């Protein structure tokens, strides 16, 4: 369950990042998550890639190779329409989770 949990949250974070920043490569996504969460969410940087590829296979995001500002070749990811819907669903689910956990904490 814990792994699913992490995976679920990571998906949410990636989708959210892409929805805010448009097109971004893996390193950029990791950097953004770390910056935006005030270094709170520390994931192994490499673990973003299985997640990215899985989401791409599910059709949530799509990718293309392009040059970075520094002239390096990198794979850029972009949100698809399906991904947008998925993001909203994930956000809702997360809200539910938070509410649920909060409710349990209150009564426990």
């Amino acid at each position, binding site marked *: *369950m814990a792994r*699913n*949990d992490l995976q*679920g*949250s990571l998906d949410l974070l990636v989708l959210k990042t892409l929805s805010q920043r448009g097109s971004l*490569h*893996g*390193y950029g996504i*990791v950097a953004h998550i770390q910056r935006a969460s005030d270094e709170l969410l520390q994931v*192994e*940087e*490499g*673990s973003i*890639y*299985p*997640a990215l*590829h*899985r989401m791409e*296979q*599910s*059709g949530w995001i799509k990718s293309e190779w392009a040059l*970075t500002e*520094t002239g*390096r*070749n*990198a*794979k850029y990811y972009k949100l698809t329409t399906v991904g947008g819907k998925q993001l909203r*669903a*994930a956000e809702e*689910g*997360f809200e*539910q*989770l938070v*509410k*649920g*956990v909060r*409710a*349990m904490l209150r009564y426990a």
Partner: protein
Amino acid sequence: MALIRRMVNLFRRGRVDGEIEAELKSHIEMRIEENVAAGMTAEEARRDAMVRFGNHVVMKERVAAADASLGFGSFWRNVRFALRQLRRSPGFALTAILTLALGIGPTVAIFSIIWATFFAPLSYPHPEQLVLAWTHYKGERSSTLADVYAQYAAQSRSFERLDFESWRTLHLTNPDHTEDETVGLPVTPGNVTKTMGLRLAMGRDFLPDEGLPGKDHVVILKHKVWIDRYHSDPNIIGKYILIQDQPYLVVGVVQAGPPDRAGVPFMVPVIIPPGVHSSDFGNVIGRLKPGVTIAQAQAELSLIDQRLLAQSTERKDPQSWAVSVEQLHNDWLDHKLERNLWLLLASVGLVLLIACTNVANLLLARGSMRRQEIAVRAALGATRRQIFAQLLAESLTLALIGGAIGIPLGWGLMKFSLAIFPELAIQTAETVIEINLPVLVFAFVMTLIAGVLFGCAPGWQTARVSLSDTLKQGSRSVGGHSRTPVQAVLVTAEIALALVLLAGAGMAMHSFWNLSHIDLGFAADHVVTGYLQPRNTAIRGGVAHVPSTEEMAVRNRELLAQIRAVPGVKDAALCTNPPLHGFGTVSLAIVGEPYDQAHPPIADLKLVTPSYFHTLGIHIAGGRILEEGDGLGSVPVVVVNETFVRRYLPRTDPLSKQILLGGQDSAGHPSSLSLQIVGIFHDVMDDEHVTGTVQPEAYVSLWQIPVPYLSFVARTAIDPAAVTSALRRTIQTDAQGLTLNNVELMQTVVDNQRAGDRFGMILFGSFAGVALLLAAVGIYGVMAFWVVQRTHEIGLRMALGAERRSVVFLVVRKGMNMAIAGIALGLLAAAVLGRLLHSTLYGVGELDIDSLVGVAALLLGVAVFACWLPARRSAAIDPMQALRNE
């Protein structure tokens, strides 16, 4: 499509690997770049980047896995998870799996029989090219005249080969001369290896000119005969064996295989040259040329046949004749058996449906137990689709395990059915009943359908769990309110289905009981019968010498005296056909009664010696029986059965009437023999199928109309099986050159006649039993679950002063509501079923009140018992305990 993308990835693994490597590498390099920019040394920057990234190799593997997991990956994950879940509740898993196995097993068994009987391609090379050409006369399919075949063979272009299989009976004498009642088949040369495509274990096929007179004494043996009768003699080729008392040269032995399973044990050649007149009838069997359709072949033969009809002097009414070309397949099935098989498939389908309903109910119950777990998983981010997929994977896993057990169970059931009903294996002749690939595919598809069928509704219901409600309710597992109606509907449906099956089985049993208590009209015990056939008939050219009537009468008297002299024989008679062996129907006229040329009275004519009545114990209802004094010189007399009198002479004294065999011609003159009715006998079952119906019959003395083709019946004082060999010796050594065929005990014949009904009854009965068991388990499960759910409520009731008895009543009444609704629905469906089955049953009305009431009472009783078990447990609830537990 995600699935297709993943599949494509599987095939370009190399390129994908390179891309992943490049992507990961660029990430690490960007991190190094930034680290350096932040002031680290190159070495530090590199190490930091690696640490932050994690295990490079593992990450790469995981990315590749994400690309190529194919969706099956997640399915297998679900299955593994499902297996863990099932292991945690073994009681549930075991019940569900066994229920499914009980549903799938019989389906597989019956389908394997259906497949082999109706659908399996025959085991000859290119069976689709093999066709039969039938002659139709007035819409009835019949065999074809040899002359006609010869013209087909000479003129048609559609066939690679067109062969003739004659229907003549040939007798084979064993090497030790003990028995010789085997029947062989004359075929045109080339039929064996070229048309049918059989392989020879040794020797050769007939040569093209073998079959012409003088060259036709050669024989090909089937494998089984070679083993059984010739003890696998390796030097059999070139030896002579006796057929019709003439030496035949063995030229070939067919390889072991399906041809051994049925049909004739040997083949001899026959050639029908065009233009040579022959009175032979037979099957025309051919192999189509590649590319020629059956319709084209039929059109060609029809054209040839029309030309032949125009010239024919024998076939007078051209418009009554037709030709059809049909695919060779199992076409000689007993219609009753055929109908029975389809009904059985329908009934095992119902059993499977009941099993599915049961498992769906179990899953629903389990689903409400697991609401908590599902809710937590939903809260942790599982989408509804994921949960549904997980639940579906669980039911599919159950189905697959159930199928895996059900298939061997089906194999066992199939073997068992064949053991209790060996006729089935013979009926399906050229194909072998087995669990083969098509049957396995069918079983697998059925299993998947079953899994989805019983998994969908509960899965959907459970996945639709409302998060906040469930979590708020805490550990309390109430909330079955919305579910119980679904379960109640399922149980009601299940009971209705079970009742339909039980009603079918009940009617089959009722019919069988009626059949086994039918009045046969004769005493079958201690009676031996057999066919007597002349053996010195040449294969070609028909009967060589027809003896005169006087000669035949003398011979027959001698023969009867010899049979009577056999020790142990009390009485004996000669006849054209023994009872239950069919008959010959003739049209006739009754002198002085109105006569309709288009619909003349008909009767089954049998020639018997006067001792026939006494030997078989046939009762006389009026007048006298045939007497020894009724001979060639005296007035021709006839005795008729009661049905004859009822149908044709209801208001007159039958004993004053004469009948004219063959009816009248258009001028009103008698066209043949006139017979005085002298007696009326009690109806005897003469039909080859005991159906309980009797046709009008007329018995004439064999002493007045002698014929050379006979059967005998003998009543014995001792065990009839003990006198058969003595009878055989007597007849075989008789100088008349007769051969004894089909020696049977009358009791065995009677039993065999009922075999088809017995088969139907046993199988219907056992499947109905399974259905009853499943329905009982279903109603028990739901009621047990209901009681568990209501523990709190029942405890409260009892605390408030409810008596144990009223609690039991409450539970049983709840169950009875479902049972009675189900039974009522089932009775409606059973009434429809009764109408469908009516024609296959004997003495059972369209609405068989007896069996319906019987099975409804049985089902109700079982349902009460199934409800009473959980009810008793509910009454044992300790109110204090129940209330405190909540």
